[in-house]
C-alpha cells in the first residue's frame, strides 16, 4: 500500500523554477533514493513535500490522505518527518531535549526516549550533552532519533552522508535499514551514487528540477545514474 506519494510536484524560488513535475511514490518499508548533482532541486523537492517550502503545484498524499494544503507542522503531525540537510538540531538544547521535541507530533506509537536509547546505547551516554557539541555522526543519530520520536509513517532524509566520516555513514545507514525493516517508508537524498545503488529499492535521478531517470536499483549501474544526473539520458529505464 502506498504510504507517501507526491504527484506533479513543482516548486520555485521566486522567479526561478527549482522543481518541475516530479512524481514519487513509496510503499511501507520501501527505500527510495533521490540522486542528482548540486542544484538539481532535490532539497527543494523534500522541503516542498514536507511543507517547509510552498509547492507551486502538486499533490502530496500520506497514507491516502491529501495533505497538500497543510502547513508544515500539520504534515508532521500526519506522520511525515524530515531530517533536514545539516541535521538542524537545536544546538543549545540537550540530546534528551532534542529527542523530546520530536514528540511534538502528538502521535501514538512505539517510540520514546528510552526506546531510542535502547536501540542506540551510544546516544544514552550523551543524554545531557548539548546537541551543538556532538560530532556529525552523533548529530545524525540524534536527528534520526528525533524523527522517530514523532512516530512517523514516512521519513525523508536530506544529504544523509554529507559531512560524516565513513564510519559514521555506515552507522547511519545501518540505523536506516532497521528503520525500514519496521515498515517505515524512507525517502533519501544522497550524493554518493554507489551508496544509493547498494541501499535503495527505487532510484530517482534529478537534473535541473526534472526527473531524468527512474530505476530499480538492481537493474541499473553507476554510469547510467551519473549520465542521467547530467541530463544525458531521457526517459525511464524501468
Amino acid at each position, binding site marked *: 500500500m502506498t504510504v507517501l506519494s507526491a504527484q506533479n510536484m513543482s516548486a520555485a524560488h521566486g522567479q526561478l523554477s527549482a522543481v518541475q513535475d516530479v512524481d514519487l511514490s513509496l510503499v511501507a518499508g520501501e527505500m527510495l533514493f533521490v540522486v542528482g548533482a548540486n542544484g538539481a532541486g532535490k532539497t527543494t523537492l523534500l522541503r516542498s513535500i*514536507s*511543507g*517547509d517550502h510552498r509547492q507551486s503545484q502538486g499533490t502530496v498524499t500520506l497514507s491516502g490522505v491529501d495533505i497538500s494544503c497543510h*502547513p*508544515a*507542522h500539520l504534515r*508532521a*503531525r500526519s506522520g511525515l*518527518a*524530515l531530517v*533536514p540537510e545539516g541535521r*538542524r538540531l*537545536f*544546538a*543549545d*538544547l540537550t540530546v534528551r*531535549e532534542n529527542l*523530546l*521535541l*520530536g514528540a*511534538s*507530533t*502528538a502521535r501514538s506509537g512505539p517510540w520514546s526516549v528510552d526506546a531510542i536509547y535502547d536501540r542506540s546505547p551510544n546516544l544514552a551516554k550523551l543524554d545531557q550533552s548539548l546537541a551543538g557539541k556532538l560530532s556529525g555522526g552523533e548529530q545524525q543519530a540524534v536527528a534520526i532519533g*528525533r524523527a522517530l520520536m*514523532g512516530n512517523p509513517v514516512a521519513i525523508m532524509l536530506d544529504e544523509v552522508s554529507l559531512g560524516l566520516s565513513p564510519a559514521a555513514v555506515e552507522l547511519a545507514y545501518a540505523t536506516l535499514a532497521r528503520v525500514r525493516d519496521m515498515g517505515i517508508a524512507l525517502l533519501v537524498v544522497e550524493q554518493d551514487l554507489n551508496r544509493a545503488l547498494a541501499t535503495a529499492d527505487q532510484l530517482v535521478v534529478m537534473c535541473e528540477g526534472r526527473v531524468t531517470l527512474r530505476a530499480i536499483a538492481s537493474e541499473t549501474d553507476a554510469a547510467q545514474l551519473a549520465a542521467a544526473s547530467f541530463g544525458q539520458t531521457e526517459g525511464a529505464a524501468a
Partner: protein
Amino acid sequence: MTGLILNSVLLGGYYAILAVGLAFMYSVMKIINLAHGALIIFAAYGLHLLGAMDVPLYLSIALVGALMFGLGMGLHAAILSRASSGGALLPLLATFGLSILIDNLLFQVFGADNRSLAPLVGDLSWASFELPGNVFVGQLSLYILLAAIVIIAALEAVMRFTTLGRRIQATSQDRATASLLGINTARTAAIATGIALTTGVFAAAALGLRSAWAPYSGAAQLLFAFEVVVIGGVGSLWRVLVGAMVLAIAQSIGAAIHPQGFLIGGHLAFLMAVFFRLPTWRAAFAPIARKGVSA
C-alpha cells in the same frame, strides 16, 4: 552605607519585575517590545479599576494577568508576527506606534490624575521590618524583591523543564525546523508573547503599590526595563536581577551626589555598560587613543 545598599537591592527587585517581560521577549522572540511600558501602565489601570470595585488584589492580579495573556497572544497574531517577517525595523516601528496609541488612549479614558494601588493594602505600603543595627527594611519592597525572584525562577523552570518551554526555545532558535517537528510555531510564539505580557501585571502591581502612575508613565518604565536588560546582558533571565541591582545602585549613588542625580546615575550606568560591552567601540577609539599617546 548599609542602608543605601539595602535599599538599592530592594529597588532593584522592582526593576527586575519591570524588566523580566522585556528580557523574556527579547531572548525568545528577538523583539524589543517598545510598548512594554505602556502595556504595564494599561495593566495598572486594570488593577485600579478592579480595586475600585472591591475585588481583592490577588484576584485582580489573576484576572488582569489572564487578560494580559490574551492580549499578548492577540498582539502577536495581529502585529508582531506580521512585523517580524518584514525585518528588524518593523517590529520597532509598530510597537512604538502602539505605545503612542495606548498612552494617549489611557490619557483620554482615565485623565491625567496620578493613581496608586497603595490604599488597597493598607499598612503594608509603609510597614517595615527592623533589622539589627537600627536598619529598617520596607516590607512591601522586600515582598516585591521576593516576587521578582519567584517570577524569574518560575520562567526559568518553565523554559527548562516543560514541554512548552522546550517548544518555545525550539521556535526561537530555528522556526522552520521546529515546525517540521510538528510544533505550531505561530501559536507557540503567541503563547510566549502572552507569558511576557503576563509578567507585566506583576510589574503593574509593584509600581502601583510602591508609588503612583499616570497615563504617560509607561515611557519611563520602558527606559528602566531596557537599561536593566542592557546592563544585565542577554542570556539567562537571572542576569535581569543583576542588571536591576546595578541600575538601582547607580541611581542611588547619583542621588547621593546630587538631589536630581537619581536618573542621571542610572543613565550613566547604562552608557558604561554599552561602552565596556562593545569591542567595536574599543576599535573605534583605538586610533584616537594611539594618536593621543604618540602626540
